[in-house]
């Protein structure tokens, strides 16, 4: 392969852009890069641009606010709204909201619904975060190794990923849940054990693309080796993908917990999570006990939405860095 001749198609300005493309700001940037006066150090200009981009995305900010709100609700809420979530109280079962001092009523065995939502939120958040982060970490390691080593190692590693991916996740989760007894740590491990596949694929693609980039070639031309390529280039450039992916993995893990609970393989009481509360509340959907269904349902939706909004916002924020003005 050799270069193709390129003419003066360096495009700092409005020239040669396809119609409809977002335009860069103009040629010869207004700021005199060649000026001699010293400027204050601008250590984190990329980070700042990214944050600006993120903050301009209203949905992403909303997502962030929601996450913070739900975390406060689940972890700080119980300090303000103390309830007994251990002992059943059958005398006070199915109390409608607002009566007998129960703000959101009680469930079928007398637990305060509001307090239970706070408790359940803790489990949902912890399981989601732990499983999502674990899966991302392992997937990243796997994908980066496969992508960077290449050759038959890559082939073997990726065929294994293909094989695991081709078993629909819920089937596998259910099968495993019948074999082991579900507890919170087991749940985290089970979900993480199969959620790492997508990040692995994505990171592998990224590292293969990075491996052949000119700046890696340039580094090799100076005598740098593979270890350096990974340490100072690949990690730096793939980190965005990893972080964005992690937020989506967290959202998915929260949903998986809900599905497992619904299919009867969730964490047994008195532990609670929103998915479990929703699935046991589903039975009440025909009755008038609406407060057992909609609050947990809405909270799950909000949490999953919030992580997705944040993920989208982060993706834009990371991309901004590579865009030429």
């Amino acid at each position, binding site marked *: 392969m050799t270069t193709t001749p390129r003419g003066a198609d360096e495009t700092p300005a409005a020239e040669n852009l396809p119609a409809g493309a977002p335009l860069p700001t103009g040629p010869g940037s*207004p700021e005199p890069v060649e000026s001699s006066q010293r400027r204050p150090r601008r250590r984190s200009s990329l980070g700042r641009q990214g944050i600006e981009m993120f903050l301009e995305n209203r949905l992403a900010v909303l997502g962030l606010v929601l996450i913070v709100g739900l975390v406060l609700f689940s972890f700080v809420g119980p300090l303000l709204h103390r309830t007994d979530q251990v002992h059943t109280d059958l005398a006070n079962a199915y109390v409608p909201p607002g009566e007998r001092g129960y703000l959101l009523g009680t469930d079928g065995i007398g637990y305060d619904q509001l307090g239970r939502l706070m408790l359940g939120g803790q489990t949902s958040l912890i399981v989601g975060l732990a499983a999502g982060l674990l899966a991302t970490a392992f997937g990243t390691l796997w994908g980066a190794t496969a992508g960077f080593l290449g050759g038959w190692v890559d082939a073997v590693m990726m065929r294994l990923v293909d094989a695991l991916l081709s078993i629909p996740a819920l089937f596998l989760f259910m099968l495993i849940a019948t074999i082991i007894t579900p507890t919170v740590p087991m749940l985290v491990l089970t979900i993480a054990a199969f959620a790492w596949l997508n990040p692995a694929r994505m990171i592998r693609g990224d590292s293969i693309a990075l491996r052949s980039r000119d700046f890696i070639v340039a580094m090799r031309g100076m005598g740098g080796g593979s270890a350096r390529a990974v340490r100072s280039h690949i990690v730096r450039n793939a980190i965005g993908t990893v972080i964005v992916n992690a937020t989506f993995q967290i959202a998915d893990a929260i949903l998986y917990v809900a599905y497992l609970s619904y299919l009867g393989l969730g964490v047994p009481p008195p532990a609670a999570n929103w998915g479990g509360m929703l699935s046991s509340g589903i039975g009440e959907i025909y009755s008038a006990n609406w407060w057992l269904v909609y609050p947990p349902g809405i909270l799950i939706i909000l949490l999953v939405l919030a992580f997705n909004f944040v993920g989208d916002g982060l993706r834009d924020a990371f991309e901004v860095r590579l865009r030429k003005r």
Partner: protein
Amino acid sequence: MSTPVHNTAGPLLSISDLHVTIPQRRGEVTPLRGVNLTLRQGRTLGIVGESGSGKTMTALALMGLLPANGRISRGSIEFDGVDLVSATPKQARRRRGTDLGMIFQDPMTSLNPTMQIGDQIGEGLIVHQRLGRKEARRRAIEILERVGMPRPDRIAADYPHQLSGGMRQRAMIAMALVNHPKLLIADEPTTALDVTTQRQILDLIEDIKEEYDSAAILVTHDLGVVAGRADEVAVMYAGRVVEHAPARELFENPQHQYTRALLAALPERASGSDRLYAIPGMPPSLKEEIAGCPFAPRCHRAQDDCRTGTIAFEDHGAGHRVACLHPGGEEHLGQLSVPAAAAEKQVLAAQSEAPAPETGAAEDVPASAEVVLDVDGISKNYPALGGSVIRRRIGTVSAVNDVTFSVREGETFGLVGESGCGKSTLGRVIAALEQPSEGVIHLDGTDIEGGKGRNSKAVHRSVQLMFQDSAAAMDPRMRVDEILTEPLDIQGVGTAKDRARRVEELIDDVGLAQDSLERYPHEFSGGQLQRIGLARSLALDPRVVVCDEPVSALDVSVQAQVLNQMKDIQAEHRLAYVFISHDLSVVRYMSDRIGVMYLGTMVEQGPAEEVSARPRHPYTRVLIDAVPTVEPDDERERLLVEGELPSAMDPPSGCRFRTRCPFAQEICATAPPVVEMGAEEGEHQVACHFPLPEDGTLPTRVGAAR
């Protein structure tokens, strides 16, 4: 060229005071700020300018294809008696593809990849003339034949990726022609093509224009393309037409200081020992208001009155219009470079310009200078992979074949050739990024062993690579100081403090301010990035720098800055350059000696002036003759070739050029030519059975001269 005037009634096209504004996330850009143009029936107008000058935007405004949100904020476009600015979108659409036909720069991406060529051409007939599919296809085949496609019926059923670059551009032209446009707009029609193909395409556009009796606008950054083809030329700068004149008048008697500077910056007019005139600074931002002449901040003749008010676009007689308060000048253009060097210094005074040596950098390298790099019989083959379940080798691509040359200290060796000739592969082998399949490379007398041996670290220290696209060759998430420190880091040079000091020195050496160190690559313009790339390749005090198309992506004025800088630094450090480029005039200007490559082989090498003035290999002659020049009187006999580069997977036997050579005889197919003439180191060598005579005439067996 100069077609008789058909219609004295009035111009076919007249644009006056055209302004285009595009709102952005923050603020707005005004890429066109007062464009004035006229064009009569049957004539060709060349619009030249650098990137950002607004030449493409003018064409798009004319077509009604402004980018989203873009609008014409002032001025008028009158075409064929109709006002285009007030046209409804539907009227504008009806005019596109009928009265107005447009050819775009990159024929690969400008054709729909999943649509057959015939359908893409026929679409215009189906939509505008309501033809049936069959009839449209028949007409498409006809027009493909007209634009010189071999076997047009088969090509009509092909998809773009099955065609070569030149054929794709022919298909684009066919597409623009189907409805017999009154005006044909070609936007950089040959920029993505090789120089021999470029000539074929430009000839075709000219023929077609005459045959269809239409007018044409040729938009290009390449003054040479316009010089031989256009009747009139408009020079654009910062969204304005600054000069508009008949082509000959413009090139013989340029008036606007920008036009003059641009011509002085062309390496083709300079001899190797001249310093090019480099226009200092950069074009202004199109986001802000510009008072006075937009070129004033970079102009060596600018006075106070240039910086205020509006500069009128005045007629200087004979259709020569100029927007300049102090046009022309006593200096002859060729000499502009001498005082200009001083002017450049003045303007750059605030910019910590590197201490440039007083004389031009490329003094003759004494023959006694030490040979730094010795390339001996290098070949590079790649396995061609194929196969279904298991990928296996199905053949060999011979990218470089038995190339020998040497470079001395302080000398530049230019490698020139079209895409696919193997010059970049050779560059990577020299930089020890690839192992040669055969042959040896000696660096200061030591075998570099492809960078794998005991001394690999030393090799990577002494040979550096400078890339065409520095933006891609720098980690976008690293700051410039990290980028410049990286080579020092890898090689373990000095302490952290030493490295920091060295990096400050380097950025100073290439004439950039210290605060550049805290910025990221995307914050720089192309020319600045190339300088940073140069600084990085100098960090380790190398013996040899392999420069792979270092200025090919740059505008002429910026290119001159970078080339000057490279020459200065070479003189200062006694560097040896291997300068790789497809652009013969740049190579000739930069190099002491030139090697010409064709399909992996070195067909000719020798002193730069000698090879370019008296080429002995037919291919070199073809290459030289294909380059368009700005001299309007250039009527020498030209040697042309037809056809395209054969595949390197199965190169022709004997001489690899023989399949396209007009002088080829039987022996050329059987025996590879041996190097002839001065076998001495550094003398003119040619690998041809029938070298051209030294007096520059062409033998009688010429197949395609004019």
